[in-house]
């Protein structure tokens, strides 16, 4: 379990990192963030980049700030920082809750939000959060920067809209009112989710005025459960409505089964965890009033 030879650079700026990507374009370069996925893949020789561009020295890629009603997080911000940041607790508690479920503390001390999103593991927690919050992802390339909505960013398992010469630099999360919940089912603490659900609900009086739901574990990427959102939006929430939303969330999904959960079990888990997530989010929304 040792990687094959590779060259390595740790440039201090985004511009230099982007330049190195172009310079080594023929050597299958890879961008190294926290290394919690890429390094094991290299040790297994499942990934064999000839050139590694480590972003650890790019100071401008780390940081958490509020820009009006948008929470802006640098791509290299470590997950443990996000978990503990007061700005995140206030502006995107859904992200804080989900981040606490990523691996274990030592993993989160190295792992970054940008690394997780760009790696696009179909079982990862953070893509579902980005989807549920309608995050914007900012990428830098040779031609400057562009903004990619989360819904367009996730293309498939380990596949994103990032071009080969682009680096993910920033995640912009609009602040949402109402209640939130991130619940997941994993075989052991800190393990990848079998199924995870991100839920946001806003109440207007007794009625749900807005709902956002994203699921991990039932499709090749995290997905928005728009049919379930439609069931909830405008409804006075009760057990039947929530159950109907859970049914809607899984109608039509065709998850692949694996060693840990068959397709049928994944659907059952998604249904029960949508119910749990919506119920918890509603409780929190009601508590806020």
């Amino acid at each position, binding site marked *: *379990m*040792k990687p*094959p030879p590779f060259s390595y650079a740790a440039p201090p700026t985004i511009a230099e990192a982007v330049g190195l990507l172009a310079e080594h374009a023929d050597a299958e370069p890879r961008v190294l963030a926290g290394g919690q996925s890429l390094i094991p893949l290299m040790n297994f020789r499942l990934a064999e980049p000839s050139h590694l561009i480590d972003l650890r020295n790019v100071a401008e890629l780390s940081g958490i700030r509020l820009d009006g009603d948008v929470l802006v997080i640098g791509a290299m911000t470590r997950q443990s920082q996000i978990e503990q940041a007061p700005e995140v607790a206030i502006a995107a508690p859904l992200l804080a809750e989900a981040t606490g479920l990523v691996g274990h503390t030592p993993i989160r001390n190295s792992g970054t939000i940008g690394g997780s999103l760009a790696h696009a593991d179909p079982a990862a927690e953070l893509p579902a959060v980005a989807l549920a919050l309608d995050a914007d992802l900012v990428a830098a390339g040779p031609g400057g920067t562009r903004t990619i909505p989360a819904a367009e960013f996730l293309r498939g398992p380990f596949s994103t809209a990032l071009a080969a010469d682009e680096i993910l630099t920033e995640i912009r999360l609009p602040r949402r009112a109402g209640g939130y919940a991130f619940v997941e*089912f994993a075989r052991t*603490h800190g393990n990848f989710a079998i199924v995870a659900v991100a839920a946001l609900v806003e109440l207007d009086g007794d009625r749900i005025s807005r709902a956002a739901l994203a699921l991990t574990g039932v499709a090749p990427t995290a997905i928005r459960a728009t049919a379930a959102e439609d069931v909830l939006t405008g409804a006075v929430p009760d057990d039947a409505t929530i159950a109907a939303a859970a049914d809607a969330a899984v109608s039509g999904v065709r998850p692949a089964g694996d060693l840990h*959960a068959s397709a049928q079990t994944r659907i059952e888990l998604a249904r029960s965890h949508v119910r749990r997530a919506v119920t918890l989010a509603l409780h929190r929304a009601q508590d806020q009033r």
Partner: protein
Amino acid sequence: MTTIDRPAPPPARTHKRDRRWVGQSVRRVEDPKFLRGRGGYLADLVTPGMLHAAVLRSPHPHARIVSIDTAAAAALDGVHAVITGAQAAELTDPLPDFGPDPANHVWRCLAVDTVRYVGEGVAVVVADSRYLAEDALELIQVEYESLPPIVDPQAALEPGAPLVHEPLGTNCAYERSFDFGDVERDFAEADLVVRDRLRWHRSGGQPLETVGAIADFDHGSGQLTVHTNSLSFTSYLFMAAASLRIPANRLDVRQVPAGGSFGSKLFVTKPLVLAGMCSRMVGRPVVFLEDRVDNIANCDHHGSDRVYDVELAVMRDGTLRGLAIDVIDDYGAYIQFGVGHHGNALAQVVGPYTIGSVRYRVRAALTNKNQQGAYRGFGSEVNNWMLEQMVDKAARELGMDPVEIRRRNFIRDFPYFIPTGNVYDSGDYDAVLDQTLRLGRYDHWRTEQKRLREQEGRYIGIGLITCAERSVFSATEFWFWFDEPGAPVTSMPESVTLTVDATGGITATLYSCAFWGNSPETMVAQLVAEEFDCDPHDVSVAYQGSRNGLPATGPGGSRTTVMLAGAVEGATAKIKAKARRAAAHLLEADPDDLEWADGGYQVRGVPDRRKSLGDIAIALHLFKHGFPEDIESGLEESKVFDHPYTTMPSADRKDLGVFYPFVGHACHIPVVEVDIESGAVRFLAYAAVHDCGTLVNPRSLAGHILGGVAQGIGTALYEEYVYDDDGQLLSSSYMDYLIPSAMEVPELAIGHVETPSPYTPHGIKGGGEGGRMMAPAAVNAAVNDALAPLGVRLTELPMTPERIRAALRTPR
């Protein structure tokens, strides 16, 4: 009924009262070095200049090797040698194999012309670094011709199944049915026969440091020195020398702490032989240290993998009469220890119950998987689980309470011969049960269970199991399977040398494993301190390698502490006999008038006429003329301690003799909650009470219980080597082979009962495997108790969420 003539047990010992050190939770003497990172694990011994070996592994479960092209690998800068399986077969002989008919399923350090499981080695590269060695592996071109794999053990036994070993002509490596006692009568007279099919899937020990060896062959002397973290069955290492075709007196195997074994490093010779072969070829030290993928796929120590069809004959009042077991065990592609795992089961097949007869049919299936080896319990933990499942099912069918059915059948007269012929030396099962019911707040949880079910719709389960824990095996369990065994060995000794230096300081020299997590140094230090009235932390412990070492067997079958205690006791007696004589001279007294007191000899009744051990030692070391001519200088004695109580099996094998006589006992009560929507299981409480005879170090034993329970929880809920229908190993890393962490393992309430063995020093019994021998049974019982209102029982381990959900979809 057949009567069996049995040799009388050895005379019961009188144990010393008022022990000072045995029984104390002293700090482990090993801890300071390990906590400082100075333990000296194998990876710590790798030095610059050493060459590194890496093994190319088969991606196929079953294939013929058509050709191997190593030219590109050999040409890579920094590569010193590339050895294929065919070349290795010219350099080495097959590996030591205790299985039946080894000539027809030949096992070598690398596959020669056929690979038989995913991960089997086909070539080894020696290079300047492990990185380079792995680069070279990618340059080796192997052409395989796929053969049909056989994965399912029952299908493997069907006629026409693809053969794992053609020369054997079958995939059934062993089959036999034994009757112990009057099985026919017990079943004919039974009011009820409880039947079930049970499935235990394979898991294995997961050491922090994998298996490795550093070999240094000296062409000048012909001497091979190997540092390896497997050094059990020390007395049998001549077999590894034979594999390497070197004289046994030219092989010196040196102890390295195991870094975790749990059985999985029991007599592992493959890395030793690989590294030795490579070092001899290149003339330099070579390290081969498995990486995690090597270890998971190719450690030769996967655990039991059994399909049971069981019948339990019971009476309406709950009396258990007879047990009929038909078990298929999936051994994988080789069968290095034969069916010794079932010998373990037969040692305590009836558990703590007065079951009068047993039928045991065992079939060992060969399949395209990594082979079985040892894993904490060695097959007896599987029997415990099977039996407790059957007892619980009987209780359910009879409408009896699980506590009551157990009490009704407890063995209470000791020594007690179970139907297989093994003896249980002592025990007090009621005391253990009573304490566990209190510690585990059994009545409280029964009330809570009802309340939470009715008021909150929650499914709480309370498991209760009472299990035996055999300790200190006899080698007979490896061969009594055969009427004409090839090697009916009976020696399983352990040795200690005690050296008293001129200052009275004591060094204990051990001859088998350095450290398997079983704290042999602490045990010996406490035992020596007990004998000599010194502080255990003042005892120095040394190790002697295999070449000029005394006979030793090493850890396995929870034998170490008992056997070391016997060796320390024997060596102490010799030391004290010489010291008494010397003291008598120094004190000008009659030796018979002296008594040992407080670390020295004194004239009985005259405490100021005394010589401390230090006084005696310096005289013996330096003042030869102060003693009679026949008293030799120095003060050093050794004891080779043989198993204190074993007997031979009967010729007809209706009685297997005494082969595992020091039998502990435990009761576990876990309380779980099952999330019936997800199939997740979490613990609300867990109580465990063990009786391992006289305790040497209660905290150390509690560590064994806790660690073993953690592993048992893994076996019950998480851990499984999953091979798919095509023979691919799906759980080939810790991404998919799930180990419970501190987050999954509950805090344990641990209790001890002490029923001394009448046959061992101080009355000690082994306790190294206990937690894992009980927890799988206990957790399964708890889950079944939780799901009882739904009419669901789980009969397959591990109880993954998938299996729990599947069972809930189809209530039985």
